[in-house]
C-alpha cells in the first residue's frame, strides 16, 4: 500500500479519466464540457509519465508532451468555434445545438 507502484498511478489516471467522462456526459455548457475533455487528456498524461518512469523509458513523456500540444491546439479551435456560435446565438448552451436530428 505504501509502496507506490505503477498500478497506483494507473488507477488514479483511470479515476480521473472516469471523472472526465462523467463531466463529458453531464455538462450542458459547452465551455465546461471542454474542461472535461481537458481532464481526460490530463489523466492520461499522468499515466504516461508514470509508465515512463517505471519503465525508465522516455517515450511516455514524449507522448504526454504531444498530448499537451494537442490539448492546447484543441482549445484554440474549440474556443474559436464557441466564439462564432456565441456571436450568433448569445449562448453556449449545448441544448441549443439541436437543429439537426433524425
Amino acid at each position, binding site marked *: 500500500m505504501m509502496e507506490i507502484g505503477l498500478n497506483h498511478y494507473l488507477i488514479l489516471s483511470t479515476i480521473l479519466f472516469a471523472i472526465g467522462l462523467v463531466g463529458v456526459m453531464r455538462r450542458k455548457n459547452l465551455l465546461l464540457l471542454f474542461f472535461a475533455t481537458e481532464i481526460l487528456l490530463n489523466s492520461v498524461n499522468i499515466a504516461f509519465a508514470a509508465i515512463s518512469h517505471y519503465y525508465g523509458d522516455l517515450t511516455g513523456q514524449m507522448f504526454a508532451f504531444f498530448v499537451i500540444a494537442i490539448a492546447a491546439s484543441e482549445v484554440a479551435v474549440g474556443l474559436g468555434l464557441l466564439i462564432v456560435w456565441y456571436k450568433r446565438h448569445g449562448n453556449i448552451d449545448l441544448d441549443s445545438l*439541436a437543429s439537426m436530428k433524425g
Partner: protein
Amino acid sequence: MEKYLYIALFAPLVSSLFSALFTATPKKTFTGIIASLLIFSAFVSSSILLTHILGGGEPIHVEMMTWMATGDLYIPFGFVVDEISVTMMMVVTLVSTVVHIYSIGYMDHDKGFNRFFSYLSAFVFSMMILVMSDNYAGLFIGWEGVGLCSWLLIGFWFHKESATWAANEAFIMNRIADLGMLVGLFLIYWNTGTLQYEGSFAAFAHLDTTTLSWIGIFLFIGAMGKSAQFPLHTWLADAMEGPTPVSALIHAATMVTAGVYLVVRSNELYSLIPHVGLFIASLGAFVAIFAASMALVNRDMKRVIAYSTLSQLGYMFAAAGLGAYWVALFHLMAHAFFKALLFLGAGNVMHAMHDELDPFKMGGLKKVMKWTYIMMTFASVALAGLFPLAGFFSKDTILEAAFAEHHFVIYSVLLFTAGLTAFYSFRLTALIFEGEERYKLFGIHPHEAYKYMLVAMSPLLILAIIAGAFRTTFFGMVEEILGAMEYHIHSHVTLWIMTIGTQVFVILAIMYAYKKYNNAKITVPDGTSAMENSFMYKLLLNQYYIPYAYEKYIVVPYREMSEVFWTHVDLKIVDASVDGIAGIIYNTGDRTSAMQSGNLSTMLKWMVAGLLGMLSLAVVFGLAVRYSDEILAILSGLGV
C-alpha cells in the same frame, strides 16, 4: 389411296378456313354451300377408302411429318385408315354432310351464318384427326379440338348467358376427363416408350396387369368426359343450348361417341384387363338406365333426346366393356344415324315452334309437319330398337352379348332400359305430333322446314331404317382387328324367347306411352298434379339433384375458396408477410432513429455507452480467460 385420306382429312379444314374468311361479313349462302360440298368431298373420299378396306385392302398408314420429338419421345402426325377408323370416318363425314346441308336452312336467319360453318367444319376436321390418328397424341389433338369446337358451338349464341355457361361447363368438365386421359398417355409412354398404337399395343402384352389397369382406367376417365358418363354427364344436357344441328352432329352422332371409339381403339388393352372392362360395362349399364330415367319426365325436347343419347352411350360402353367391341362400334354407327335424325327432326320442330322446346306446348304437329313427323317417328322406332330398324340389330346384339357373357344384371338393366327408351321416345313423339294442337294457345304458327333440309335428312332416314342390314358386312370387316366374335346364345329357343320378349316389352312400352300422352286431356303441366309433386318425379326432373349438388358443393365452394385464397391468403398472408418484413425493417429504423436526437449530450453518452459496453465485454472475457481454470473447475463440479 393416300390422296383420299388427305382429302378426307383436310377438306373440312379447308372448309373451315374458307368460311372463316367471311366471319366478319354478313351472311353469304355460298359459304354454306361450299362448306357442304367440301365436307361432301370428304365423305366421298371416305367412301372410297371404305370400299378399299371392304375390298380387303391393306390399312392405309401415312406419316405426314414429325410433330414432337424430344428425348425418346417421337410423335408424328401419322394417320391410319383401318377398319375402325374408316367406320368412324364414314359416320362422321356422312352425318356432317347432312348436318352441313341442313344447317344452310336451319341457320338461314342467323347473323353468324358464316361463322357457324367455320366452326362446324373445324369440328369435322378435329373429329377426323381424332379418328384417323395413328397414335394417342394425335387422338388427343382431335380430342381437344372437338372439345374446343364444341365449346364454340355450344356457345354459338354467345349473347345468351345460359349458352355460354353451358359451353364453359362442357369445356371444363371435359378438361377434367382430359387430365385423366393425359395421365393415361403418360403411363403408356413411360411403360411402352411410344404413343403409337402399334408399338404400344405390342408392348401391352408384356406389362403387368396393375399397370395395364391403371392405363385402362385413366384412358377411360378421358372417355367418360367426352362421352358424358356419370359423374361427368351433366354438361351434355346443358349443351343443348347450342344450335340443334350442333346437337345432332356433336352431341349425338360423333363427338360424344369419341369415348367409345377410344375404348374400341384400345381394345387390345382392354381385352387384357377384363375387370376394368366389367367396370366400364357396369358403369355403362348404370348410365343407360340412369339417363333414361331422367328422360322420362323431362319437359325439354332436346334434353330428352340428349338423355337418350347418354343412355345409348351407356349401351355402347356396356358392350365395349364386355369385350364386344364391334357391337359397340356397330351400335355407335347405327345410333349416329337415327339420333342425328331425331335431333334434326327436333330442329325442324323448334324452327316451326319458334324455338319452343316444351313438348307439352306442342301437340298435333303431324298435320303441318308431315315429313318431320315421319322421320322422327322412324327415328324413335329405331331408337326403341324395333325390328327391322337399325336400332334393333345393334341394341339387341348388345343384350345378347351381355347375356352370353353371363352378366345377367347388366342384361336385365339394359333390357329394362330398352323399355324406358321406348317409353320416353314415344312420349315425345306423342306429345309433339299427336293430340290437341296446344301450340295454338301460344299463338304460334308452325310450318314445315325447307325442302332441301328434309332431303338432306333423308339419307339418315334411310340409314336408320336399313343400317341393320350391314351387320354382317360390318362384322366381316372388323372381325380381324377387333377380334370380334358372334354371340351365340346356347339354345335357339332362349334366343328367340329373348328377342321376341324384348320386342314385346318394347312395344308395350310404346303403347303405354301413346296411351298416356296421346289424348285430349294433356295440358301444359302447371306443377299442381299429384304426379308432379311426387318425390320420384321431382328427383328425376331435377336430374337427381346432381347439377344442384355440383353447383352447391363444387362450384360455389371453388369460387369462395378462390376469393379466400386471393383476399386472405395471397393478400393477407403471403403478401402481407413480405410487406411485413419490409415494414419491420422500416419501422425499426423509424423508432430507433430517435437515437439520433440531435442533442450533443446524447451523442456523447452514446459514445461513452459504446465504450463501456465493449469494456464490459472485454472485462468479462478477460476475467474469464484469467480464471478459466477455476471456471472450468466450477463447471465440472456442477457436472456440466
